[in-house]
Each structure stands twice: as structure tokens, then as C-alpha cells.
């Protein structure tokens, strides 16, 4: 016990100012019986405030694993990770929950709305978990729904909404707490291409308003919307370059 604790860990160097996401030699290893699968292998990236980044890569390359780490849903096997100058790689379950609530707005491929709750209640949910008083909660949830142009649908349940509308509710939920980072995993994967374009236009708009956006995708068309693309192969950063849209 005592000897294990004596192992010298280099104190991680905090990221410079203006950097929102900073990973330093991040690893995620899964144990499958006797074999080890390194889903993420030594990823070191920095994302500054108000960047619009796409993470690309073929299926099985480790995109989702990396996104779970960035989204504080999972802890790395090795390496350090800062979000908004907080070292989250050492945090426990409840601390991570707090960070997810405060710093991150998730947008999932399958929307992940509560089926039995109205749009308004779905959007309200993150505020419930940080103790925002009810009147303020409802006011802000309505405002957020207005932002995605769904104010008149707030009493509808997800099954009464189209795919695009559902994703907009999810985006409203992601925005309601004014997070540092909007993290989207294949946000158009379950939408037809026309609706997909509408959602991507919404992300553009959010970016213009100053939000930091990370989109995980395997589609080039979607990645094109971003201003920077990080290519992942076999759990490693393969390429990291600005897109045509970056000026």
C-alpha cells in the first residue's frame, strides 16, 4: 500500500490561458479477458474557447471513447485532462456529475430525451440538478426553447415531435445551463439530410454567438461545417488541421 503511494507522479502542468479543453497523453484501455484494447492511445489536444472542432475517424477508431472522456462521462486510464482549468482526470463520480452539469451540454445521435416528459421539462432537467428555483428554471427553459425556435412546442412530448424537432429540444437542453462546451456525437446521424443541414445551421449560429463546439462525426459533409478537424485513427491523433471555413 505505502509503496504504491510513493510512486512519483509528475505534477500535470496546467494549460495556458484561453484554453478550454486540454488533454495530456490521454489513454483509455479496456481489458477484454486476457487482451487489452487501447481505445484511446496518448491523445494530447488543446481546444480554445469559441473554437468549432470536428473529431473524425472511421468506425472503431476511438471517437466515442474520446468523446466520453472529453464529456467527463468516463475517466481515463492514464493521462491528464483539464476543462476550464479544472483537472477532471482525478475526479470521482459526483464531482464529474457536477462538471457535466456546469461545463458541458450534450447532444446525442439518438437525442436521449426523457420519453415521458414534455419538451419544457426535458430542457428544464439540467437546472433541476443544480438546484435552480422552479420559477427561474421554467423561465430559462422557455428562453432556451425560443432560441431553437420551438417555444410553441414546449408542452409536446418527444413522440409528438419530428426527429429534427427532437434534436432541437436536445440542443435547447444542452444550452440551458450556458455550458462552456457543447459536445455533439453524430448529431445528424438519425436525421434526413435536409433536417441535418438545418441542425448544422443551428450549430453555426451558436458558434457565432460565442459557444465552443465539438462535433464527433464520421461524415465529411458534417465535418466541413467545423473550423478545425481532428482525425483519429486507432485511438491516436492522425491529423489536426483547419478546414476551408477557418479564416
Amino acid at each position, binding site marked *: 500500500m505505502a509503496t504504491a503511494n510513493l510512486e512519483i507522479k509528475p505534477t500535470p502542468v496546467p494549460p495556458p490561458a484561453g484554453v478550454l479543453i486540454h488533454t495530456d497523453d490521454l489513454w483509455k484501455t479496456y481489458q477484454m479477458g486476457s487482451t487489452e484494447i487501447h481505445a484511446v492511445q496518448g491523445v494530447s489536444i488543446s481546444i480554445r474557447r469559441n473554437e468549432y472542432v470536428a473529431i473524425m475517424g472511421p468506425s472503431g477508431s476511438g471517437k466515442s471513447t474520446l468523446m466520453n472522456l472529453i464529456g467527463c462521462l468516463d475517466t481515463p486510464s492514464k493521462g491528464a485532462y483539464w476543462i476550464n482549468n479544472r483537472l477532471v482526470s482525478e475526479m470521482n*463520480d459526483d464531482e464529474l456529475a457536477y462538471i457535466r452539469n456546469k461545463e458541458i451540454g450534450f447532444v446525442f445521435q439518438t437525442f436521449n*430525451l426523457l420519453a415521458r416528459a414534455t419538451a419544457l421539462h426535458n430542457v428544464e432537467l439540467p437546472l*433541476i*440538478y443544480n438546484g435552480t428555483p422552479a420559477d427561474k428554471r421554467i423561465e430559462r427553459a422557455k428562453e432556451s426553447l425560443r432560441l431553437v425556435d420551438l417555444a410553441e412546442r414546449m408542452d409536446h412530448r418527444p413522440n409528438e415531435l419530428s426527429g429534427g424537432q427532437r434534436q432541437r429540444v436536445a440542443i435547447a437542453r444542452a444550452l440551458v445551463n450556458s455550458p462552456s462546451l457543447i459536445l455533439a456525437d453524430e448529431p445528424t446521424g438519425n436525421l434526413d439530410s435536409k433536417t441535418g443541414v438545418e441542425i448544422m445551421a443551428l450549430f453555426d449560429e451558436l458558434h457565432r454567438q460565442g459557444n465552443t463546439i465539438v462535433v464527433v462525426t464520421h461524415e465529411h459533409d458534417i465535418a466541413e461545417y467545423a473550423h478545425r478537424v481532428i482525425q483519429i485513427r486507432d485511438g491516436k491523433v492522425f491529423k489536426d488541421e483547419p478546414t476551408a471555413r477557418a479564416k
Partner: protein
Amino acid sequence: MSSFRENLRLALGTINSNKTRSVLTILGVVIGVTCVILIGSILTGMNRSITQSLEGFGVNNVFVQKMNMGPRNGRPSRSERTRKPISYENYEAVKEGCKVCSQVLLTIYGQTISKASYKSLEMLNPDFQGTYPNFPDVMNMSVRSGRMFTEGENSHSAAVCVIGNDVADTLFPGQDPIGKPVMVNEHTFEVIGVFEKKKQGSVGENSQDTTIAVPYETYRKMFPSNKEHFLAAQSMQGHLDEAVDQVRAALRRSRRDKYDEQDSFGIATAESFIEQFHALTGGVAAVMIVISSIGLLVGGIGVMNIMLVSVTERTREIGIRKAIGAKRHDITLQFLLEAAALTGLGGLIGILAGFMGAGIIKLISPDFPISVPLWGVAAGLIVSVSVGVFFGLWPAMKAARLDPVEALRYE
């Protein structure tokens, strides 16, 4: 942190959207709580009824007879059955020895009387007794028409009687019994008074309403071999315990009970009877609590089972909640409250069913003073909610510990 109210609203919403399953789940709890309420009500009714009928005999009285009094199991022992009767000398000893007794009443009884009659009308098994003029005063009775016999009538062994309400109703329906003759075992007595009807305790009929009271000396003359006496000593207000001690001491001396032997007589007060009955009903209550606990246990296991199913079914929901910032205790609280609200609802339904059951019993037997006790309602609620918390804890903790990545991937 999410608020308690928020979670409660959520829990009620979930219960409402799974009505059939919710109802089936809480059936055990409903039945358990209904049983608790009903049994509590019946026991309360029994205690009240016993208290009522015993208080009718006078709360300040010390009663003495040969046999032990109060509820007993089995036949009295041989030594109890072979005791000497309470004698006239014993009565005088009590009168002499009890300083805090305002008066002592002697009554003689025990002659088997199968019936009393007037013309062709008969009254079976009347309580025929020989007593003194202070009988109504000591026994908390009043004469509603006519009068009690006097000391003079007693010393002259006059053939008069004062009858209980039921005797009057049976032998003299619709007419005034005063002055009419009643036949008891070939002897004829003139009715000179009728006792007021006693406040009904509902455990059996009140023996005081079937009384035919004649003067003590008259009884002695008619049945000279009869020696069964009954004593009632009325204590001065607030001296009941002293009176019991003094009566007991006087009797032991007068009956020559050895210092290391038990009393050779039964001695009791209304209070001591009530205590004995409370002990009895308390025992019944304990047994019933065990039985309804089993019902609640079965109900609780059902709740746990359904909550485990619910956690599995809602893995994705738990994942979503955790992803957007629910901490472990938020999820724990959500599922605990759901379980507690479920069983609490069962408890409420059980309490309502208990009230309805008590109401039905009241309709069927209006004399029985059944009443739902407050402790039953409180216990029903507390126990049912506790069952939910206890049996919901494990499923709730299981839900709270789910890994958000795994939970979000769950189909």
C-alpha cells in the same frame, strides 16, 4: 441537487403512468395496513366496551367473592374450588377493618333459579339475589320507578323485590310492574321498584338488567342452606388503593389465611378488571402485528422486485439524468421516493379500507363501540412508507451506481 418536491412529483408521475403494475405491487401493503387498522379498531372497541360495562359497576368499589375474578384460562384449581364461602363474619370484619370505606354491601346469591314468572309470561335465568337497601347506591344503579326496599322490610323479611329493566320488559310488557306479583320458585314477591337500564357495554348483556333483588333476610329465610356471598366495598374518593389493602387485610385475618399462603378469596376493582382485559387484548394485538408484518414483508419484497425491474427498464433514463448532472444521491432519492410513494399510497388505501371495514362492522353491530385508533393510522402510514424506503434502498442504490456510459448505451 434536486429538490424533494421535484422528486415526489416525478415519483407520482411514474406511479400514475404504470397504474396496473403499481396497484398490483402495493396490494400486499394495502392488505397489511388494512389488517392493522381493522384489528386496531376492533381491539379499541373491545377495550372501550369492557371499560364501559365495568365502570357501570362503580369505579370506587372493591369487589370480593370466593373465586378469583377476571379472565382466566382453564378451570379454576382444586384449592380455589374448595375455598370456604365468603361469610357474614367476613362482611362484618371488612366493615370494621376498612377505615377508608364509606359503605360495604353484602349480597347473597348462588341459588339456581331457572325462571321467574308473572301469569303466563316467563323470564329465564334471572339474577336472583338477596341484598341490602344500599345496593343501588353502591352498585351505581338508580330506581327509575317505585322505590328500593327499606331496612325495615329487610329485617321483617318482607316478600318484596326490585327488578332490572330486562325483567320488567319481559314480564310486564306495556304495563306498570309496580304492585304486581312475581313468582320465583313457588315464592311470590311484590314488585315495588324497577331499576334504570344500565349503559350498555356490548360484551354480552349486562347482568344488572336481569336482576331480581330481594331483601337479604328474605333470601336467607327462603334458602337457608345458601352461603355464597358477594361483597362490594365503596371507598372514599381517591382512597381506592388503600381500600383494597384494608379489605384484603381484614379478610385474611377474618378467614385465617396463613401469612405464606395466597388469598383464599378473589378481590378486584373495575380498574383491575380493565387492566386484565387490556393485557389480554394486548396479547391479541401482538399476534396480529406479527401476522400483518408478514403481509407487509411480502408486500415489501414485491416492491423491491418491481423497483429492480423498473431500474433495469429505465437504465437509459438513468444514463440521461447522470449525463446532464444527476449525482448519485439524486438518483437514489428519486427511486427511494418512488418506492416510498408507492407503498405510502398503499398505506393510504389500506387506511381508507380499514375505515370502511370499521364502518361496515358499525352497521352490522351498532352497539359495539368500534373506533379506528389514531395510533393505527399513524402506524399504517409510517410502516408503509418505511417498507418502501427499506425495500427500495437496494434498487435505488443499484440505479445510482450505474455507469453513465454503459447506461446511455443500453437499448
